[in-house]
């Protein structure tokens, strides 16, 4: 140890001193800290949790005691807060910062960012909004994409971004979503509402009245782990009751699915395998049996439905294709016997049958058709509106089926401008283009400005978008065909993203603003999205980490750039908003549900409203179809739709039809080259892409550090693949690495890679190998049909091979990469 010091004087001293800069530490009084820490209640998509905060850190997170079925994913919350992938400071892409719209766009995704101050970042945000509005008008800006924002009614980032950007100017918006695009478009024509986001018949009613429960491409035990607002998990114990009734022979449950699901394994019952994407053929065979064996409820159809004759003519071979949709015809396509089809039809017609559809089946080419056919099958049984009968499209979602209390829930931070207010740039001139596009077609929009598509009875002209704003939304997870996206992003001059972790959307952006997580802000939320079980206080657990801010702070500061911060925030602070939202809820429940004063609520953390009331979907319509008419054009169930027929679409006509897919496994088109169907359904251990970055938790399910690719023993053996191997999954659109999980839950020709796996290419080139296993590297990006133009992610064929050689390191996440010293 040396103790020698040197002394500099004069200019030399000044020059060297300038290198040192200010100290990063300062003298401070020692703050008192509790050695025991404090437990706080907060809410999340994964349920209500208690968090122990000690020394300014969340040291433990566990489910709230009254959660009847906590999800395992609670284990991932700490890793989400303290993940090295957190965005720490506002960052700008280096080349873009210098050259803006003239920057090299081919280098997006190469990680060359520089730090900017918040003031610089927000000035840049504002300058780009100004530039685009004044240069291109509202058609130059797309700010419509939204996703599963963090929970909390006040800080909901969708609302904050929309309100702030709307104050500045108009912009291109989206219609629909990726979850249910086809379903939410077709069902209003058939049943009068989207159905996918509607409350369903209460589980106690189903358990009491149903003799058959058919889970059709639906896996609620997997998907009910998460909710749109704070999830209560009250729905899951009903599956225990269902399991017991199945075991006792009181209920018969069938899972129509190419995969043995988590739900089926939990409740027991039977799986009816049919070939992927052949559901409509199967259902047409069922309809044929119901009709030809006189099992259909003619009186119900006469009173409650329209268009049966036109449909049944098609089924019986008297329609345009002159093909009779016999069970034998369907069996050839579906991979099961004609007798199985007949038996299934007889079963659902003979006793009270609740059909429960999932959403994956409509995320395919012609995804409108199976949902429409499902409604027709339910109508033919005459059970729509009966307790424990009819059809549901939502029982796997956010606690649907838990009896609803009827209590009013907190509102949200306003999404739009206040009444009478107009944007700074109030032009509505979209240069002849559309101001709203179907959301799943936004990449087509970027690649084909001025192009025209049909959408739900209208012609959409793609605007020439030059700038995108994303917040709490990861399109580089939920959109299809990564390499197509990479090309499309080269057309954008500016991409601005607000998020809390360095996902692929951030990496492909020009300006990245760090929002804090929901655990670093105060908020209020609905407890039970459909049950309205209660209201939960979301206490800030720790201060925003690094230099992140709440969405409220970020967008208030943005609005300040054009002098409208006070209008944006209404001059209120975070806690004033939270308290007002609570007091408004309390006032609206006066006389029906008692709620404590705000201070008590905030201390207690949760107010509950008790058990809700049992309810039967469509019962009111069944009771009086004129007084309680459906929202369809006729007010009745539309088995055939004149409205849709008039659109004249070749891929969605007057009634549901069997249409071959552009690619289909098990003998379908292109299966000779790529024989395996890739299913990319919602994950079991994350919420879409949320929590994928939580390293410890990811390691609990990853295989060789990669996203699992679930494959049948037969397919694995044929390819020399063993459980735990790294595999390359590929087709003409892309390639990825994944970890093989060999399981007899999967039929030959079927592979599952859950969506939400973070995209991590080896480099920024188009066609680059994805290192972690994002299935949307491979999926097809075409509209479901001219009606919905929804995602067709589940129409996707691939080939799989064992990966030989040194696998490249995963590039998707932060955290240490092992190095050899």
């Amino acid at each position, binding site marked *: *140890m040396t103790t020698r010091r040197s002394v500099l004087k004069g200019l030399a001293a000044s020059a*060297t001193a300038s*290198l040192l800069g200010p100290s*990063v*530490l300062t*003298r401070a009084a020692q703050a008192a800290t509790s050695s025991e820490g404090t437990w706080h209640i907060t809410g999340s998509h994964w349920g209500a949790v208690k968090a122990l905060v000690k020394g300014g850190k969340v040291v433990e997170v566990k489910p709230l005691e009254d959660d009847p079925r906590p999800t395992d994913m609670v284990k991932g919350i700490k890793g989400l807060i303290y993940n090295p992938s957190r965005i720490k400071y506002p960052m700008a892409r*280096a080349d873009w910062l210098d050259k803006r719209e003239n920057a090299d766009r081919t280098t997006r995704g190469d990680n060359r*960012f520089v730090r900017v101050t918040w003031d610089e970042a927000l000035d840049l945000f504002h300058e780009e909004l100004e530039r685009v509005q004044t240069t291109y008008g509202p058609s130059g800006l797309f700010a419509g994409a939204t996703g599963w924002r963090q929970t909390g009614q006040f800080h909901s980032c969708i609302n904050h971004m929309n309100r702030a950007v709307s104050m500045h100017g108009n912009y291109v918006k989206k219609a629909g979503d990726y979850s249910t695009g086809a379903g939410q478009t077709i069902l209003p024509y058939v049943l009068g509402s989207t159905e996918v986001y509607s409350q369903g018949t209460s589980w106690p009613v189903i358990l009491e009245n149903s003799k058959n429960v058919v889970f059709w491409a639906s896996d609620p035990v997997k998907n009910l782990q998460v909710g749109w607002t704070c999830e209560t998990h009250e729905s899951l114990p009903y599956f225990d009751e269902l399991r017991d009734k199945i075991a006792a022979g009181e209920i018969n449950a069938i899972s129509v699915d190419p995969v043995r699901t988590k739900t089926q394994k939990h409740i027991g019952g039977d799986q009816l395998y049919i070939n992927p994407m052949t559901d409509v053929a199967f259902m047409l065979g069922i309809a044929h049996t119901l009709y030809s064996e006189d099992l259909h409820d003619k009186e119900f159809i006469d009173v409650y439905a329209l268009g049966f004759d036109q449909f049944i003519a098609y089924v019986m071979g008297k329609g345009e294709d002159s093909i009779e949709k016999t069970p034998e015809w369907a069996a050839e396509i579906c991979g099961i016997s004609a007798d199985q089809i007949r038996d299934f039809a007889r079963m659902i017609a003979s006793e009270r049958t609740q059909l429960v559809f999932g959403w994956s089946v409509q995320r395919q080419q012609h995804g409108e058709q199976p949902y429409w056919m499902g409604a027709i099958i339910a109508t033919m049984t005459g059970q729509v509106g009966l307790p424990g009968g009819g059809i549901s499209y939502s029982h796997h979602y956010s606690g649907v089926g838990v009896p609803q209390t009827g209590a009013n829930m907190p509102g949200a931070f306003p999404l739009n401008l206040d009444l009478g207010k107009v944007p700074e740039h109030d032009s509505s001139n979209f240069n002849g283009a559309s101001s709203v596009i179907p959301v799943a077609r936004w990449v087509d929009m970027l690649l084909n400005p001025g192009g025209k598509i049909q959408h739900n009875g209208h012609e959409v002209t793609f605007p020439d978008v030059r700038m995108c704003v994303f917040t709490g939304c990861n399109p580089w997870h939920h959109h299809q065909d990564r390499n197509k996206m990479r090309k499309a992003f080269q057309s954008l001059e500016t991409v601005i993203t607000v998020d809390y972790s360095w996902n692929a959307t951030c990496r492909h952006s020009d300006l990245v603003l760090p929002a804090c997580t929901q655990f670093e802000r105060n908020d209020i939320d609905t407890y039970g999205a459909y049950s309205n079980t209660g209201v939960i206080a979301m206490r800030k657990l720790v201060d925003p980490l690094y230099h992140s801010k709440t969405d409220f702070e970020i967008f208030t500061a943005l609005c300040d750039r054009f002098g409208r911060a006070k209008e944006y925030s209404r001059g209120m602070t975070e806690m004033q908003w939270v308290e007002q939202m609570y007091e408004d809820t309390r006032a609206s429940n006066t006389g029906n549900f008692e709620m404590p004063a705000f201070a008590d609520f905030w201390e207690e953390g949760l107010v509950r409203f008790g058990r809700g009331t049992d309810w039967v979907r469509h019962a009111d319509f069944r009771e009086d179809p004129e007084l309680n008419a459906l929202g369809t054009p006729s007010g009745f169930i539309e088995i055939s739709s004149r409205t849709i027929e008039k659109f004249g679409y070749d891929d969605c006509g007057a009634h549901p039809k069997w249409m071959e897919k552009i690619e289909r496994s098990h003998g379908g088109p292109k299966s000779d080259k790529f024989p395996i169907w890739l299913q990319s359904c919602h994950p079991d251990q994350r919420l879409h892409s949320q929590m994928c970055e939580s390293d410890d938790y990811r390691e609990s399910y990853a295989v060789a550090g990669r996203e699992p690719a679930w494959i049948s023993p037969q397919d694995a053996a044929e390819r020399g693949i063993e459980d735990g191997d790294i595999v390359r999954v590929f087709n003409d659109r892309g390639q990825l690495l994944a970890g093989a999980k060999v399981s007899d839950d999967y039929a030959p020709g079927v592979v599952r890679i859950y969506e939400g796996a973070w995209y991590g290419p080896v480099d920024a080139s188009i066609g680059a190998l994805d290192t972690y296993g994002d299935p949307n590297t491979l999926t097809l990006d075409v509209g479901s049909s001219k009606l919905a133009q929804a995602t067709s992610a589940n129409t996707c064929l691939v080939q799989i091979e064992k990966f030989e050689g040194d696998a490249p390191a995963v590039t998707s996440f932060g*955290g240490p990469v092992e190095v050899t010293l």
Partner: protein
Amino acid sequence: MNDVLEIGHRQICHWFAGLLVREINQTQFDAYLSGAADPLFEQLQTLCDVSAERVSFSGTLLEVKGEATPQLRSLAADFAALFLLDGPTSALPYASLYIGENGTMFGAPHQDMIARLADAGLSQALEANEPADHIAFMLDYLGRLLEADPSGQVAGNFVNDSFAPWIDSFEARVIAAKTEFQFYPVIVRVLCRYLRALKR
């Protein structure tokens, strides 16, 4: 203006801390070009051999000077790629990432530094809510230990306990990272030599 500047461990640590927590500005870069870091290297040389790195450092300064990008943009991008982002291009300067709770931030080393700083009556002087185990805080703290105890015993123990377990991994990641210039990799090599020399 500083008329007199004493160069000792406190200043060396202060210098490293500043380099690893914020990007250099034009004034500082011009000062480097004029040889303002020479006294710092000379002081370091009394403890460990950094002559080769000093030559590399001078070379990389000239390369940066020849860079067409304005305002040291490429150097700032190197800083971000190493110390601010994540993933394979980065070498985030937090002890927790290398020795904490399985790679999460704000781990045990953060808690340890919180306690050390509190005992010393110190706190962060940054605007951001950074983990206390950011290497800059640790270096500033180390400089203060060295100043307070010229024998270096306390500081050496701190280096043994708090730096030694992870600086090899940190240095390896910095060297493996993709940067346009060698400015930061050279600085980190010098820093790691210095810290190894302080080990007891």
